[in-house]
């Protein structure tokens, strides 16, 4: 295991392309679920200090909903073993209400007890479907065998939410690497993003698998 803070331009390009493909598929699944056009920007590969990572999500106390999924290489499959990453779907609170309303056909008013009771499982399922689309496309592209966890939800300050991937991947260095992709609804505001977090060991495996000589 090594900790590294510097990646070559080629590695960054490859990571951006991975994010583009993964998030593209995630956006398509979101668009299908909502029957709505979703715009996405060019993904950004960030290698930043922990505090700057939090700033890039609107500051520590920004209130959001987050769905977290972890993934890992299938054990026993030689070249996939050792892969470890997390996907984090972040959506601002108003957009979260909008998205749940759209998906449930406006059955309940946001804020009503029925709505609030249903919201966690609906948001978890959205994150789950998008995360699976993301990871499956990366698995197909790289030929890696990847396992994905069930979705976990937290509605809280984004700094507190980010403490989980940062603690997982920030042990060895004082930076964290993630590929961030933001989504916007066309017509309706759906401010959300999906980020892939991984350690340098995982990135090395992916590069090798894609035949990128370092």
């Amino acid at each position, binding site marked *: 295991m090594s900790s590294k803070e510097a990646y070559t331009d080629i590695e960054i390009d490859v990571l951006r392309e991975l994010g583009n493909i993964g998030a593209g598929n995630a956006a398509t699944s979101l668009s299908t679920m909502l029957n709505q056009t979703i715009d996405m920007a060019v993904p950004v590969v960030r290698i930043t200090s922990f505090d700057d990572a939090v700033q890039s999500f609107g500051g520590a106390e920004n209130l959001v909903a987050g769905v977290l999924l972890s993934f890992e290489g299938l054990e026993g499959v030689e070249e996939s073993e050792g892969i470890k990453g997390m996907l984090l779907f972040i959506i601002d609170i108003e957009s979260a209400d909008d998205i749940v309303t759209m998906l449930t056909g406006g059955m309940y008013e946001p804020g009503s007890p029925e709505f609030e009771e249903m919201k966690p499982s609906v948001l978890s399922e959205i994150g789950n479907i998008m995360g699976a689309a993301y990871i499956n496309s990366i698995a197909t592209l790289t030929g890696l065998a990847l396992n994905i966890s*069930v979705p976990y*939800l937290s509605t809280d300050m984004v700094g507190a939410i*980010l403490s989980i991937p940062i603690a997982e991947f920030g042990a060895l260095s004082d930076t964290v690497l993630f590929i961030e992709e933001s989504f916007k609804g066309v017509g309706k505001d759906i401010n959300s993003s999906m980020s892939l977090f991984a350690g340098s060991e995982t990135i090395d495996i992916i590069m090798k698998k894609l035949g990128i000589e370092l």
Partner: protein
Amino acid sequence: MSGMLTVGISDFKTSTSPDAVFVTFALGSCVGTCLWDKETKIGGLSHIMLPYSKEFKDFGEINRMKFADTAILDMFMQLRRMGAKPENIVAKIAGGAQMFQSSVGGSMGNIGQRNVAYVKEVLKQLKLPIVAEDTGLDYGRTVYFDNATGTMKVQSIGHNVKEL
């Protein structure tokens, strides 16, 4: 606010000034530890992310402020150098939440619990009493620590502000 000292992630700050107010934002699984000499009003706030630096000792230089074992020891030594007396120092801690839950039951990881357990272990080894605590559960916390009064204020979403 004048004299506000912001403590980042994997960071600690100390001060001899009674006007100092420390703040660390949005602790999730991380733990905030306030140490304060109640006589001289010399105090500090640390924000650790992981319990135990020794797990990573084979991987080269580490940031000592990131881990409970090294951060709290270093902050304690710094307070002593600034004139705090060990027998007067008390500790207050907050954070260490389990942030993520599954809608079908269960939660992700136990890093918050491990952080709290290890912070307590280090404080015990240093013989520093924990006089206030707001840890665990499933929500994030912003912590303010007032060097004049030794009050730890904990703010979170959907919960009342606590003054401890």
